[in-house]
């Protein structure tokens, strides 16, 4: 078991440019079931992907792949033809919010948006548009979602992941890789890793992710990685206190960040004294979360949170 995506997830890609094509190729090599692409001016064409799979040599799995991905003019047409139940958005920032709304209009259950640099106002409108619709948005400005050895939607390197017991949820990309790799090395592995993104306005948040992991039978514990800015970690702490039945470990980046400066991510800014790392760490610790003192200790903190087995 896992959350959000698994081996049966059928994935569409919106935004088949150079980046989108590259990551579609790596997703297929990983084993993701990519079923179609959406491109307004290339409808009717196919895009061919072929090569050696990541699991080449593993008994019972394919060594090579060749996929002819059909291209559709609209998300609705792609869904109708392929039965896709997820979409990944690589569309450039000025058009990305429209792509998200188009996917929601076609009632795609899961839309994972990788694009970085979408105007805040566009995301405010997109989130308003999503209200009351059955679509779950992950991102934007995130590495994506992966269920190891089943489905990889996004830009994360597949090989650092391994199937296992821990749900991972994070606002950061490379810091997630760091965390996932530690969980792979210490043998805990991951059920699903969710990148919720570094923007101030995003879809799925910590609370949504914690709730999914809480009811997933395969997940024994959660590692959450937050950073300065906003109050999503504080809201997560309150939710954990009230509802979480599984152990949670965490790390918060930005204890040394100066106030008022944006640290790379659009959402990583301490403003008006709000959103400091210390406030987040205090809130999470008081909710029983084991906080890793440094990023090197994220795997160890997760082991500690799980307790003696």
């Amino acid at each position: 078991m896992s959350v959000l995506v698994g081996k049966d997830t059928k994935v569409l890609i919106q935004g088949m440019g150079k980046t989108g094509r590259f990551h579609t190729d790596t997703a297929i090599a990983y084993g993701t079931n990519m079923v179609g692409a959406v491109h307004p001016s290339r409808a009717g064409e196919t895009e061919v992907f072929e090569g050696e799979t990541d699991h080449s040599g593993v008994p019972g799995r394919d060594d090579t792949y060749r996929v002819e991905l059909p291209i559709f003019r609209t998300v609705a047409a792609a869904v109708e033809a392929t039965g896709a139940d997820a979409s990944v958005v690589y569309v450039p920032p000025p058009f990305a919010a429209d792509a998200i709304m188009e996917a929601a209009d076609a009632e795609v259950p899961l839309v994972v948006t990788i694009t970085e640099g979408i105007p805040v106002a566009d995301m405010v409108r997109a989130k308003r548009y999503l209200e009351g619709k059955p679509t779950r948005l992950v991102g934007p400005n995130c590495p994506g979602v992966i269920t190891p050895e089943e489905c990889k939607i996004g830009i994360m390197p597949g090989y650092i992941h391994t199937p296992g017991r821990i749900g991972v949820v994070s606002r950061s990309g490379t810091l997630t890789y760091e965390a996932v790799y530690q969980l792979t090395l210490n043998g805990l592995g991951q059920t699903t890793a969710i990148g919720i993104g570094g923007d101030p306005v995003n879809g799925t948040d910590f609370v949504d992710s914690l709730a999914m992991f809480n009811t997933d039978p395969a997940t024994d514990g959660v590692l959450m990685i937050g950073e300065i800015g906003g109050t999503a970690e504080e809201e997560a702490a309150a939710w954990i206190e009230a509802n979480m039945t599984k152990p949670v470990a965490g790390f918060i980046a930005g204890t040394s960040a100066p106030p008022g400066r944006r640290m790379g991510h659009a959402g990583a800014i301490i403003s008006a004294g709000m959103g400091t790392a210390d406030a987040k760490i205090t809130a999470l610790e008081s909710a029983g979360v084991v906080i890793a003192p440094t990023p090197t200790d994220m795997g160890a903190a997760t082991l500690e949170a799980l307790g003696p087995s």
Partner: protein
Amino acid sequence: MNIHEYQAKELFAARGIAVPLGRVATTVDEAVAAVRPLIEESENPVVVVKSQIHAGGRGKGRFKEHPDVSGVNVVTDGIDGGIEAAEARVGELAEQMLGSTLVTIQTGADGKQVNRLYIEQGIDIDRELYLSVLLDRATSRNIVMASTEGGTEIEEVAANTPEKIITEEIDPGFGLLPFQARSIAYGLGFEGDTLKSGVKFLQGLARAAVELDTDLVEINPLVVTIDGEVMALDGKVAFDANALYRHPSIAALRDVTEEDPAELEAKEHGLSFVKLDGDIGCMVNGAGLAMATMDIIKTVGGEPANFLDVGGGADKGQIAAAFKIITADPNVKGIFVNIFGGIMRCDTIAEGVVAAVEEVGLEVPLVVRLEGTNVELGKQILDESGLDLVSATDMKDGAEKILELT
């Protein structure tokens, strides 16, 4: 992106949002020349001389070169002495302020050089209020925030008297509705003509904020004049950098002299860089990892000199540029390169580091931690380069090693 007060007021005025009359001046002569038309048009003998820098606290700020001169000066000489007396005093002030360094609570001890003045008509104030439009991250909506406590920092009001803060959410589908604007206006105690002018002001401001893709619009103080008019006495506007592509006229308002030259250069190379006060330079891929690298340097007892995220798809040239920006900082006594290769391959990073060192030389210790995609190839490139560097096994090991070496 931030702009100056006078630019914010020009944007307000163009949208029917009331502001005092004013003129910008970059020379003493321009400052003096602004006085007569302002006094004649406003029929008020008082003018105000305001420093234009991208930092708050100007009124309480003082100049390094002239410790008795404030960043904002009310000139009342015109009341008894007429326009000539006002002109003389403005000239004297402009002489002291232009080119001098203003230190405020927000500039840091180094202060900021004042290159522009804004000469504004005096306003007879009845009440000072607070107004802002900003994103509420918890609800993913913009909100209008208002308070009767003008002139003080809103953080202070929020901490001490939160009941004095009024908020209304802006639905992106509808904008600020008239009843919401009235509700804020009632909360601020507006009545009669002031109520009308206040509602118009509030709706205009909410519309401008959405139309211009602002991160923040803050008017502190918002004033009610003795004639009952609602007016922006100050104006701070910050724009969403990701939306500037659709506002070329706003992008043109950027004043690069207000920005750190190293940060500007980094931006030109597509790098995300923030200058800090420490002595250990860092080069990292990914914003979260870059922040965590600064944190771990601090945890082991060091001080980071910068935040630097080379991004997920940097090429050799960008890596070299990043390296040069770090080494150009005279405070830097050591460099820690911390990479977790995903899409970004470790061999690309290694080649970039080698190329940069060959080009600019290396006079400080260098610790490199590589992990992830093509890590062995990356390490091999570094080993074979003959560079004098230290390899680290993980982040903590790297932070400890660079601290030992500096």
